[in-house]
């Protein structure tokens, strides 16, 4: 059983090890273990965690979703455009951003769940198409004027010593952990991902469940978009898309922890923390610009290898 515990909490231990390392390393010891750095790291993982969780839902149901980051970009731009170009009230801006995410989710859901197209290709398609549309709409210029102050405060302020964005993100994490891990809906999604034919023969509405997974994914990407707008103080035309790979790295790293061999919400958060802490430590220790990229890529490959091998060992005697 100690091996099972090691699997479950291995990533957390590794995270603690990385923290200790950069806390002691002379090059980073001064700046790394500080409240300011903790706040910076937590602020950075807010969007990445939500994006990762957005990808977890379709993945649990057996489908890739590469479009989450592009969807968050569309949501962010929609929110910013409503507030800035159309002088809409904050509530309308936020609702519009969320709605944009849901619409993309609905389109993906229709293409994949209803028309049964390959999710891998469809979502690469939407992930390519959406930033193009954003370029066309914005002319390549970010929208940063007249962003409502409360939204800016959410992005840069602190509450109870932690960045404000962490609080709504904590709510999202709790809700998704509950839905995916503790409810019948989540269990049915796992069943569909495991064996759709068998799921149908135990009365699970496979199409409806897959559909729902993509809509939830779109909605969460919408939330990530609002948080992006808050963090950036507006809609930046390139932001979000570059978060796809950190988010996926968090998801796959997360597949090695908490519920080893399976994509899961809490594991994804730990994965996001691990990547963010490591990158922060490397940066503070004066590593060159390319090091974080190499680290992210390596973490992704290692995570996939470890989680696949775990799942394989679990599946075979």
């Amino acid at each position: 059983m100690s091996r099972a515990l090691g699997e479950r909490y291995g990533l957390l231990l590794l995270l603690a090890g990385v923290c200790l390392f950069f806390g002691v390393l002379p090059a980073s010891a001064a700046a790394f273990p500080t409240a300011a750095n903790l706040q910076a790291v937590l602020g950075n993982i807010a969007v990445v965690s939500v994006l990762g969780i957005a990808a977890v839902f379709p993945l649990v149901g057996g489908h890739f979703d590469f479009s989450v980051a592009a969807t968050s970009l569309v949501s962010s731009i929609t929110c910013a455009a409503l507030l800035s170009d159309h002088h809409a009230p904050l509530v309308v801006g936020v609702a519009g951003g969320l709605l944009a995410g849901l619409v993309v989710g609905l389109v993906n859901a229709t293409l994949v769940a209803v028309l049964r197209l390959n999710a891998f290709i469809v979502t690469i398609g939407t992930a390519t198409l959406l930033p193009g549309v954003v370029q066309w709409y914005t002319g390549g210029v970010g929208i940063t004027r007249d962003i409502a102050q409360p939204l800016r405060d959410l992005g840069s302020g602190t509450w109870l010593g932690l960045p404000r964005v962490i609080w709504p993100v904590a709510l999202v994490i709790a809700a998704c952990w509950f839905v995916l891990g503790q409810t019948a809906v989540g269990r049915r999604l796992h069943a569909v991902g495991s064996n759709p034919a068998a799921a149908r023969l135990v009365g699970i509405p496979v199409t409806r469940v897959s559909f729902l997974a993509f809509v939830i994914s779109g909605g969460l990407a919408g939330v990530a978009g609002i948080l992006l707008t808050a963090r950036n103080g507006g809609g930046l035309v390139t932001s979000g898309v570059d978060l796809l790979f950190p988010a996926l790295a968090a998801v796959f790293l997360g597949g090695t922890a908490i519920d080893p061999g399976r994509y899961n919400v809490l594991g994804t958060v730990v994965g996001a923390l691990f990547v963010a802490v490591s990158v922060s430590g490397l940066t503070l220790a004066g590593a060159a610009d390319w090091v974080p990229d190499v680290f992210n890529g390596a973490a992704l490959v290692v995570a996939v290898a470890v989680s696949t091998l775990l799942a394989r060992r679990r599946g075979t005697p």
Partner: protein
Amino acid sequence: MTTPREALLHVEDVHKSYGPVPVLKGVHLDLYPGEVHALAGGNGSGKSTLIKVLAGIEHADAGTLRVPGRPTTDLAGFGAAASSRAGLRFVHQDLGLVLDMTVAENFALSRGFPARFGAVAWSRLRRAVADRLERFDLAVDPGARVASLRPADRTMVAVARALADDEPGQILVLDEPTASLPHHEVDILLDALARRAAKGQAILYVSHRLAEVLSLAHRVTVLRDGTVAESRPTADLDGLGLAELIAGRSVETLYPARAVPTEKPERPVVQVRELCAGPLREVSMEAHAGEIVGVAGLLGSGRSTLLRSLFGAVVPRSGSITVEGRPLPPSVRAAMRAGVALVPEDRQREALFGDLSVVRNTTIATLARHTRWSWLRPSSERAATRDAIDDFAIRVPAPAQAITRLSGGNQQKVVLARWLQREPRVLLLDEPTQGVDVLARADIYRRLREVAVGGTAVVVASSDVEELANLCDRVVVLRAGRVSARLRGTEVAIPAIVRHSYADREAS
């Protein structure tokens, strides 16, 4: 068989443990030239582990292997290459054939493509394969796609390929070759294997099916709890005797006693009228509470389609299905609400959630009852699973383990328990004992009878005629989509079922 000649394969004192659990505790096996030697044993007997050790897939902790003309080999470091050098040729249940390729290409995949100026010499390959097939009495075109062959021929193609290097002293190891074959294909395959054996081919034959073991094998080695319980000629053994060797205790009967025929309630639980769906043409049948109704017929006769229609998984072209007098809409969920349950034919593809735990596989059809305030309660799920494990005597190392870690018989018990928790009015089972060993089979039969006595209508579709003849109160025989016979009482017997399954097709 007892003359003191040199064994073709002499395996001695094999030990193997998984962690602290010993699986093989000093197993020995002797195979003589020209002999068909069956390896039998229940779930957990160590049979599959021994085969894996011989194939070099698993390493034994200790043990030796000797073949004529070679030094004794230590099984602790015995890999796949060593296994092949020792002359062992395996044909596993899945055959390892690529269905979309031709027979010749499949030969070349494992034996190499003959080349000419760097390009594949197709005509040479075809000639070589045709020659090989002919020597195996196989009337198969080397250019035919494997998918187009009948199942028994596919197995023989795999056998011919495994033995293609013609080395002397080869031993053919067949691991459950008939597990996924329909009944009449089994006979064809057994005939072909018997012909190979008559020509002197030594065969190690692993099977759950006692009748096959008895008809094909000269000797049988029975494993029980990791030791050799018995190794002896089959000549003086019958089915019951072999079952008792496997069980290690007396098996009164494999099949439970039939229900005492009572006054039937006037209204059947399920009523099918003039059903047309898939291959089915105007099929009418019914099932009453308290009885086990068999559905017999060859592959393609529509057995599975009938069951799937009753479960709402197939949309019929015409006809009506009523459950408790109410028409059944063609939807799985509606059928489940009406109290219908289906244990599907293909366990791996249609029933098991391979990467989910035993607990989650058990409760997947009853999630609502484990939910409070939309919260799934793990304690409630575990309790239900424990009940099922106790009730069915399911052998589970840990309920939190993936279902794929269980043996076929235990997996099937989990699937059955999944549905029995719903207390179905109608229980449909398609090939309920495929890949299930004899002891688990007896458990399942006994449980089905109890369920029927409890007031459920049980419908069993099977290609195993013996199973239908011994388990069912009535049997409906399908032939080419039509009902060819309705057998009841003493008419329920193997000859009648076979005759009505095979008889000439009427022009339709």
